[in-house]
């Protein structure tokens, strides 16, 4: 491991620094709070020569993703970032990236969706993209954002599926935290250059995605589904190799804290997952055997790892920062219950929706909520 540099920086800048280290080729971007700082930092790096890439200031997020998808088809390593309504605006093009098997990496800085207008974080935006065929990570710290983006490029290019790296707006994107930057040499060892197996090339003309009859169309979708599931071992490998080279670890598909003997398990993703460690400590001090299971990989849902990690007879308290409209409670609870069914009948699942529209989730509040859920 070569000497690393330690600085204080925001989550958004951590993302930009990771993209720079990944030696990206093309970055289309459009401003939207709270991801704008990522685009600004990358534009500055390109203009001052720190990053040898092209920044395309497009006129809307739909165009951001359209430019990213086409640039990826041309053989370039691409990145873009967005939030909330911007993510929703590019929705149809997300499907083009996944169905077209193009390894685009995108940061989504979570923010609640309009209407009503809000700037602050909840997870409805990324949850609304569940069925686009994108792999999704959720990060709980600035350092994890940096680490995950590099792992995301690697996984995306190995399996040819686009990857979304999510983290909460303001809580992570705008807060200063210590950040260890591995040397460029170490990063180059972890992430070699992009070697596309197919690209748009006049020497070998071929057309991408003509109209396709049903018997030909269906196998493409089945392959996409199968390959999304097959990405789980690649996610683990990427996390392990990153740890071997840089010494840093945020969990692979899941991240756990004081879980081995836990009777009450807090289950949440993203920045809540970091704060919940402190809630677990509070509960332990109160005599409750609490633990944390934070899925770091949200899609594909790491079912096997969750099933084997949960202690016998545990009560799982799922804290959702989203609504699962049409069902009571949130989306994580529904997904957890579906994977536990018939596999871990000893587990109880309880669920609360919280933190919507950026309501502050303090460690005391979440500990109190978990206590209240225990009494339900």
């Amino acid at each position: 491991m070569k000497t690393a540099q330690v600085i204080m920086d925001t989550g958004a800048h951590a993302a930009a620094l990771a993209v720079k280290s990944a030696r990206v080729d093309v970055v289309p971007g459009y401003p939207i709070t709270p991801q704008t700082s990522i685009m600004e930092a990358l534009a500055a790096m390109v203009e001052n020569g720190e990053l040898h890439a092209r920044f395309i200031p497009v006129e809307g997020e739909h165009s951001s993703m359209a430019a990213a998808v086409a640039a990826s088809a041309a053989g370039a390593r691409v990145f873009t970032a967005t939030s909330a309504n911007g993510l929703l605006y590019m929705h149809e093009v997300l499907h083009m990236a996944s169905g077209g098997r193009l390894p685009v990496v995108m940061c989504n800085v979570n923010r609640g969706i309009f209407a009503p207008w809000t700037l602050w974080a909840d997870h409805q935006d990324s949850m609304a993209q569940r069925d686009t065929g994108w792999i999704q990570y959720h990060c709980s710290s600035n350092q994890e954002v940096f680490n995950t983006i590099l792992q995301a490029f690697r996984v995306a290019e190995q399996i040819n599926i686009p990857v979304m790296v999510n983290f909460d707006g303001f809580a992570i994107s705008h807060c200063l935290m210590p950040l260890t930057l591995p040397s460029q040499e170490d990063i180059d060892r972890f992430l070699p250059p992009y070697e596309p197996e197919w690209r748009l090339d006049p020497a070998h003309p071929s057309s991408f995605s003509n109209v396709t009859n049903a018997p030909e169309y269906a196998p493409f979708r089945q392959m996409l589904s199968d390959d999304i599931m097959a990405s789980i071992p690649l996610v683990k490998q990427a996390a392990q190799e990153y740890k071997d080279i840089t010494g840093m670890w945020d969990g692979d598909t899941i991240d756990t804290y004081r879980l081995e003997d836990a009777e009450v398990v807090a289950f949440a993703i993203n920045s809540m997952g970091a704060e919940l460690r402190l809630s677990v400590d509070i509960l332990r001090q109160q005599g409750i055997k609490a633990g944390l299971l934070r899925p770091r990989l949200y899609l594909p849902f790491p079912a096997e790892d969750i099933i084997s990690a949960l202690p016998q007879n545990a009560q799982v308290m799922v804290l959702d920062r989203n609504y699962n409209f049409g069902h009571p409670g949130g989306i994580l609870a529904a997904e957890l219950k579906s994977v536990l069914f018939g596999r871990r009948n000893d587990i109880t699942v309880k669920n609360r929706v919280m933190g919507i529209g950026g309501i502050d989730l303090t460690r005391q509040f979440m500990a109190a909520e978990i206590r209240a859920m225990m009494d339900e």
Partner: protein
Amino acid sequence: MKSVTKAYRPISWPMKGAGGNTGSWRTHRPVVDTQICNKCQICWVYCPEAVIDRQEITIDYRYCKGCGVCAVECPTGAISMEMEE
């Protein structure tokens, strides 16, 4: 990073007859009277199907859709549209 799987992408390759056996679409076929033809190549330039040989002014009837543009544009009237049997 290199791919570890063969990603099954929706790709198509250039070929004649991408629309199938398009010669079967026509109701009339163009016939060239080589006596009248002055090899001006106007029929060649307008044919949307590129089925007319520009030197010989012969027609590839496998793909000719019988649109009749060549017959209308021919300045000497050398091309006539004859009904297919």
